[in-house]
């Protein structure tokens, strides 16, 4: 079950499509927004809600990289590693965050606040290097601006 507000939102989204199943990606975003990641119960519930089999939902979740089936930090620090960002120092940004937070790529800080992730092209190539924190974009980042940004996240 989702919150009443999200149930209403999902009901509305389902009306966008001639088949309920089309709402699976939006439904998974709702699950992730509520629980931080997609839980086993979410998978079962979404399957029931959209007339899908559990494995059909599972195969969708595991295909798309923006969903997580494990708990992640409150803030997902997603460093773009693809060419345009790499040419302008993305690797240095990633290493800087690793040292600052004492975690490796794909790891979460002990307090559950930050998860560091390496992601492929975010579409901000002309504003490289780029860092996405949850859904927020940060362009032309430097080690200094990353410090300020991370220190400011509560």
């Amino acid at each position, binding site marked *: 079950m989702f919150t009443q507000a999200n149930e209403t939102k999902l009901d509305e989204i389902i009306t966008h499509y001639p088949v309920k199943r089309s709402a699976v990606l939006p439904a998974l975003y709702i699950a992730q927004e509520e629980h931080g990641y997609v839980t086993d119960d979410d998978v079962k519930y979404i399957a029931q809600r959209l007339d899908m089999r559990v494995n059909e939902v599972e195969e*969708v979740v595991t295909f*798309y990289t*923006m969903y997580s089936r494990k708990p992640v930090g409150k803030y997902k620090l997603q460093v773009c590693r693809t*060419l*345009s960002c790499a040419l302008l120092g993305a690797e240095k940004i990633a290493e800087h965050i690793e040292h600052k937070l004492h975690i490796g790529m794909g790891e979460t800080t002990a307090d559950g606040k930050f998860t560091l992730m390496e992601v492929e092209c975010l579409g*901000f190539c002309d*504003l490289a290097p780029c860092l996405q924190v949850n859904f927020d974009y940060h362009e032309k980042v430097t080690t200094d601006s990353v410090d300020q940004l991370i220190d400011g996240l509560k």
Partner: protein
Amino acid sequence: MTKVLTNRFHLKGQACDIDVYKQTGGYQALPKALKEFQPDQIIEEVKKSALRGRGGAGFPTGMKWSFVPKESKRPKYVVCNADESEPGTGKDRDLMRYDPHQLIEGMIIAGFALGSNTSYIYIRGEYWFIKEILEKAIAQAYAQGYLGKNILGSGFDHEMYVHPGAGAYICGEETALLESLEGKRGHPRLKPPFPAVVGLYGGPTVVNNVETLAVVPHIIMNGGEWYKSLGTEKSGGTKLFTVSGHVNNPGNFEVPMGYPLMSLINNECGGISGGRKLKAVIPGGSSVPILTAEECQNITMDYESVAAAGSMLGSGGVIVMDETADIFESTMNLTHFYKHESCGWCTPCREGTRWLYKVFERMKRYEGRPGDVELLYDLADKILGKSFCALGDAAAMPVQSAIKKFREDFDRRIKHNLIQIAKAAD
């Protein structure tokens, strides 16, 4: 230089408001299309414009539209491909965040021309803030009668929705996008049938890139001939280029088709960073063959000229690399991308991209074996033209072109060669 699509960019997002859009000439093309044009005449006008698909393939838009059957038992759909994920490309991002109504108006006109009552904008999940911008703009368009039932009293109905992807490059491939929109994994479909005949939910479907659809209102207002005259004979109109990498002023620039590549780099982008020397350019997004500095000198940015130089205009993502760049490293970076994004559906791409990367990894440690450069080239050959969709080709072409043109950057990574170099130095 005439600008078509970026005239509202300087408003920095104010044109997201429908009233600002209308004050600056917006929503004039839609009433004109509904009153003065028959659907077929719109398709003819788009054909005249020589507009070609701006997502990367460059297929003539009017022709694509004409493949949609007039009569269909199943509903027809217009789908906007806003899954912009081609490395080096960020133009659709600005077209949507600075001027969402331009796209929406183009989509409604496309719907009218094709006899479609429903359209979707499939936008990459990372662009969540743009999804919200589009949803607000669509709500305004409904409120003012540009969407919904009986649009402007014409009897034409059209509904429009935004659908988020969730981080899969493959969903930019039009049939994988349709699978994804139907709530499945983004695996490409066998073609034919092409989406124009059997597409979304089995209905005839036109899938067009953001930039392509955003041009449509301008063709209605000023005519196909006018749009064509802005570009070259075979590549009509203007084009947005995203320039990234080693330039002083990277960004999105709208220039006429046929604009010289070096002018784009030196004028629009203020030249190479730090006054260094140009080494290479990837002219159309990461999937296209790389060009040497020498090859760039006389290229104009249109489909024919870039093809004649052995590359492709693609999505218009221009990645510039100066003399400090190592083409082995840059090619390895992109191979990682394709390995990660290969959807796993077909063997040549799934296995080939992983194997390529494995060879790159040992070469990166300067432990390449004699014959590894040839092995990379041969592996790419085994993917090229043999994969289920174009992702395989996109992974293979950069590798082959980089080896052909920048062989020394690869040879340096072979252990045997290093020993020879060290011996010679002794």
